[in-house]
């Protein structure tokens, strides 16, 4: 017995140490990869994103504003929690596929697909109760005294009625596509 233990002890120690190091490397590497593909620089490294949606985005309040606090692409388009994030990341492999195919590699192709793309994003946000909006915009912290009267009229009534941000605030970070009203209907947005 003692003899066997003596034989496998160094092996066991090496295995444990190697597993430990391997764990750090692989898990760390996985997370590093996840983060590296989860920032704006990565998103706009594709000209499809840089020349179309990002260019439009730069004019909006989520990019440029009084205080300089700003949102980046993944803040709105990738969930923050681990599990939903992984799901979204796996779904995003389709985007890589279409990047390779060149589905939207010209402005014309992009404009032709735009309603479809936007509608899918509206559906996603509607289904998650505008989760990515609410990561920063907290209804409980909204001060109706500070808001404009049009905002108060809508927020004080409609948010309690179960409406969600994207129902009204679509097209604020990117321009609305032609035929957007049909897309909004298809996504189940309750605009009024």
């Amino acid at each position, binding site marked *: 017995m003692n003899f066997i233990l003596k034989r496998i002890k160094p092996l066991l120690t090496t295995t444990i140490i190697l597993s430990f190091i391997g764990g750090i490397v692989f898990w760390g590497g996985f997370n590093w990869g996840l983060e590296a593909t989860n920032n704006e620089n990565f998103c706009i490294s594709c000209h499809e994103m840089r020349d179309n949606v990002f260019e439009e985005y730069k004019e909006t309040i989520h990019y440029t504003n009084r205080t300089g606090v700003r949102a980046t692409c993944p803040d709105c388009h990738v969930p923050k929690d681990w599990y939903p994030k992984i799901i979204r990341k796996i779904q995003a492999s389709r985007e890589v596929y279409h990047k390779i195919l060149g589905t939207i590699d010209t402005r014309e192709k992009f404009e032709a697909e735009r309603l479809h793309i936007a509608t899918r994003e509206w559906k996603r946000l509607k289904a998650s109760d505008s989760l990515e909006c609410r990561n920063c915009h907290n209804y409980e912290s909204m001060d109706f005294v500070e808001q404009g009267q049009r*905002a108060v009229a809508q927020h004080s009534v409609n948010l309690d009625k179960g409406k969600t941000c994207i129902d009204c605030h679509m097209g604020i970070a990117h321009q*609305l596509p032609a035929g957007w009203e049909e897309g909004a209907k298809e996504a189940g947005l309750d605009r009024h």
Partner: protein
Amino acid sequence: MKTIFAMLLMVFASVLLAKESIKSLRGDHAIDEISVMPTVKKMAKDGDPIERNYVQQPPIIPHSIKGYRVNLKSNKCMSCHSWKNYKSSGATKISQTHFKGRDGKPMAKVSSRRYFCMQCHVPQANTKPLVDNTFKPLSSVSSED
């Protein structure tokens, strides 16, 4: 000969006039001087409808329109002011006149010559008028209250 003389006179007169009365858009500054940057005007964020200042004035916009897009694909104003949406949003509905085409025939949709709202309707900033005017509100031409 007479016409040439007349034309020359006109050119001469217009040059003289231009020298005296026309001020360029950059103001009174000489071209080699550094011009003074005007202060940025803050648009009124929100408020109640504003009374019209003269007869036939297109109503002015009593709220900020920052980021509002009106183009071929979408018209942000219509998401509140259209006949379909004005009730639920509590906004003023667009006038019946906007549904008439250029030949005077009524249309089901907003006429394309009325589509670009900000051609006539403008938002407000609290500033002094650039020029004086003598425009009067409706009460000055109507005997009724």
